[in-house]
């Protein structure tokens, strides 16, 4: 049984969702209905963070957000952080630091780090580790990820180019 159509605001654009079923997660709707596969699905239980998006600015697991409950909220996915075909500062820092291996965790990490650097452009090591503690990476061992954070932070402080 499908539910009444509703609208979600994703990356500044309004999308109508029709014929959704009542229990659909935001992650599912983003990937399967809106053609936005940037947010990854690895666990669907909040453990891995690969589905992280911003909901009214805060970082959340989109797999744990009931899609129909997010009406009227500002949703930002990894597709929405830089104009098409370009990279955001955090994404460029990931490339420069070699922080991407299989890449499955990358969109979630990029979102979590974006949120961190919005409030703190000079985070200490513990703050960085805390900010990404909800994002699992099976490949990098986090060393290069933390380098990428430091690079992007230095860029936001105006100390380096990317």
């Amino acid at each position, binding site marked *: 049984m499908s539910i009444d159509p509703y609208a979600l605001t994703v990356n500044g654009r309004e999308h109508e969702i029709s014929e959704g079923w009542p*229990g659909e997660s935001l992650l599912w709707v983003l990937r399967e209905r809106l053609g936005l596969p940037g947010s990854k699905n690895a666990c669907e239980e909040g453990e891995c963070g690969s589905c992280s998006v911003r909901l009214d600015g805060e970082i959340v697991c989109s797999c744990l957000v*009931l899609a129909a409950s997010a009406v009227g909220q500002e949703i930002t996915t990894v597709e929405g952080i830089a104009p098409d075909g370009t990279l955001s500062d955090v994404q460029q820092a990931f490339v420069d630091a070699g922080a991407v291996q299989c890449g499955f965790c990358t969109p979630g990490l990029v979102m979590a780090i974006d*949120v961190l650097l919005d409030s703190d452009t000079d985070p200490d090591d513990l703050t960085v580790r805390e900010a990404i*503690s909800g994002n699992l990476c099976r490949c990098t061992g986090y060393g290069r990820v933390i380098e990428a954070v430091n690079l992007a932070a230095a860029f936001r402080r105006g100390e380096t180019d990317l």
Partner: protein
Amino acid sequence: MTIATSLEDACCALASHPDALVLAGGTDLMVAVNRGDLPVHHVVAIGRVPELRGWRREGDHVRLGAALTYTDLLQPDLAVLQPALAQAARSVGSPQIRNTGTLGGNVATGSPAGDTIPVLAALDAVLELRSASGTREMRLDEFVTGVKRTALEGGELIEAIRVPVLDGPQEFCKVGTRNAMVISVVSLALVVDRSGRTVRVGLGSVAASPLRATEAEAYIGGHLDWDGGRPPSAEVVDRFTELVVGATSPIDDHRGSARYRRHAVGVLAGRALARAVGAA
């Protein structure tokens, strides 16, 4: 689907759909929905009800809206009034989980491993429940009746949770497999009430429902140097931890054995006491 924007809204929606699921942060509920364990028909989302998102001081108590998130509990002006609750909130999940998971959701889930449970038990928290037909109050230990079983009735919400503001140090400790993203294997909250000259100890993951170590509390309350502030002797600490361990009835499960839990809760009791009142 109802996205409630007022308390009245939420209660009305629940009255007309008594079988509706109450959705707060979704961090417990959506895990079950994604697994296919929980059929979804009508949902009443309460996360955006302003009355449930606020808190205020009322005399010697704080009244906490049920939909306060862990991130809300960490705000400095609230954390200073409820330090053990803030420490527990700080230990939950990850930034993502703390931004969405709520106090009311933790209580309504009624898991023995819920990190706010030992703190609320130690504080003798009172729950305010509301439905379209009225309100009632309940102590936490009356509300959580067993593992993931509560006294919540169809059409009813947890509206708020009242806890006292106490004069004295508070500690929350938890044992798990790592620091982040971990469900407690055992947890313990210890709060000191200097004016009442009592120490209160709540325990998590060592019994089916919220547990207080009442004998240990009475013992340590009678053996602390309330006027001089000298730390308790090693013998007193040992007897205290022994009594805490004696209060528990843990089980073996996938997170730990009963024997390990008994050992660990004793370690936590000694540690929390030393942090709160010092060690000789």
